[in-house]
């Protein structure tokens, strides 16, 4: 059968107006159903004709899934809230700057206007071998085309490669983990709440998906507790282009500093493994240490311990090391005249 791209196959479209309707549809159609939020990841799969779902359940009409609202000393963000709404929300800007910056760094203005926070967190791996539609491990096959003697794997994993070396590409996931967010997951069987950290899974656990979401489940909201509100945040995304690009490595951290001493910190790095990596060993190491170059350097070295580079991504080791260093020490702007 010849392969052809760029024309979406026909599907039945459902636009449920309530969450219950949506969950009912997912139950009814099972594996035939495809969930579409902002659609920006979905369209790639559909237009490439790699996935041909019989049914698409589009969530845009469910009003209850949108918006940012205060919840205690934290906030709750509906999963269908657009990245632009997250970025422009005063509560997010004021209290959770790390999320604001993460969301602002994602994709392009138009995509942020349409793409949802839930979608950004739950997007699929961007490995170009996987996305080509070949039967790699992640696609249910038994090859990793990205880790071969001739593979081009600059963007791939340095940690946790279990057959598949794809990475999580999300710009907002590290911020959510740094903020200790809770992910609210609904299915027709009820609700479960998982820590942001546990929302993401590695290939060892499940090689065909990046999150813990099971068929029939929907991420409905993200609850960010007030724990880290107003903490010292650091985010940085290093990419080839300053817009419409996925991170080579990105970092998000939250830190409580007392005078010159680091009380506690949460540090998360993405695009180095199939799941965003919370650096708990580093967090423990820096807690109670003075915030200085020496602590930062040691933290950087500790962060990259155990990294296994592929043919073209050894740079991720110093990059991750330096980003962790900066998260502790703070960035360095250098030239004042830089706009």
């Amino acid at each position, binding site marked *: 059968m010849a392969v052809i791209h*760029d024309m*979406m*196959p*026909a*599907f*039945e*479209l*459902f*636009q449920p107006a309530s969450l219950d309707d949506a969950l009912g549809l997912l139950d009814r159609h099972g594996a035939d159903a495809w969930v*579409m939020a902002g*659609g*920006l990841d979905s*369209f*790639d799969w*559909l*237009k490439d004709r790699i996935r041909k779902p019989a049914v*698409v359940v*589009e969530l*845009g*009409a469910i009003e209850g899934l949108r918006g940012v609202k205060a919840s205690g000393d934290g906030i709750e963000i509906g999963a269908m809230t657009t990245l*632009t709404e997250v970025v422009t929300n005063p509560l997010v800007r004021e209290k959770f700057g790390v999320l604001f910056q993460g969301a602002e760094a994602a*994709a*392009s*203005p*138009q*995509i942020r*206007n*349409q793409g949802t926070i839930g979608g950004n967190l739950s997007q699929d791996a961007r490995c170009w071998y996987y996305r080509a539609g070949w039967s790699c491990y992640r696609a249910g096959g038994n090859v990793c085309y990205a880790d071969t003697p001739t593979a081009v794997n600059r963007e791939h994993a340095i940690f946790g490669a279990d057959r598949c070396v794809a990475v999580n590409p999300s710009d907002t996931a590290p911020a959510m983990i740094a903020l200790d967010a809770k992910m609210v997951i609904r299915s027709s069987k009820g609700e479960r709440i998982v820590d942001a950290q546990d929302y993401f899974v590695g290939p060892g656990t499940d090689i065909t998906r990046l999150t813990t979401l099971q068929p029939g489940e929907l991420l409905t909201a993200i609850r960010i507790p007030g724990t880290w509100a107003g903490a010292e945040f650091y985010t940085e995304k290093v990419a080839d282009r*300053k*817009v*419409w690009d996925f991170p080579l490595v990105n970092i998000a951290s939250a830190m409580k500093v007392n005078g010159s001493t680091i009380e506690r910190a949460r540090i998360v790095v993405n695009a180095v493994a199939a799941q965003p990596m919370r650096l708990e060993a580093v967090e423990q190491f820096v807690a109670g240490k003075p915030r200085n170059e020496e602590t930062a350097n040691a933290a950087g070295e500790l962060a990259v311990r155990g990294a296994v580079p592929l043919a073209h991504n050894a740079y991720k080791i110093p990059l991750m090391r330096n980003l962790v260093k900066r998260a502790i020490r703070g960035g360095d702007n250098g030239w004042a005249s830089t*706009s």
Partner: protein
Amino acid sequence: MSDMDMGHTAPETPRGGASRRDFIKGVIAAGAAVSTSAYLFRTSIAGQPATGAGERLISITVNGQVRRVDVLKQETLAMTLRYKLGLTGTKLGCDRAECGACTVLVDDVPHYACSMLTHTLRNRKVQTIEGLAAPDGTLHPVQQGVVSEQGFQCAFCMPGFVMATVGFLKTNPNPTRQELAHGVSGNLCRCQDYDKILTALMKGAELSRGA
């Protein structure tokens, strides 16, 4: 400008003794009758479910007019605009939400028309490049800025850039050059004439504030 009229004539008799000029069906100007031909999609597909979750005939507001269109479930707004409504000013550069040539405003917010299902736009307001100038032909300030500064080269990206700018200026009417660049950074120009584009769009912002 003598050449600009070419192809702008209204739809006329197809084939059969007609001149070539008659034969070419022109752009259906905004506001003209809806084309009934389904250029890109079959109107009935064998195997397509007979009863769907919603009507295929939907109403969307395009450039201030309510349009009834027969839209397939998998049809994107860009395809509906270009192939059903004849609004070919919205360009397809990549069809993958990467170049911005198809940028239109949906409820005043810039979106990639290639990456929205038309069915999600029921009862929403779509504005395209064709709906920007006043009915008497007076250009929108951003368009005027482009003309004044000879912005853009091949201009295939131009409608998208202009729509992105119009949308961005609604949220930030007085941007710095850097802010405007960030605002239109979802649009790609392969002539790479970005500096002159920014000059032209800044001019457009200035004219918008004066308007």
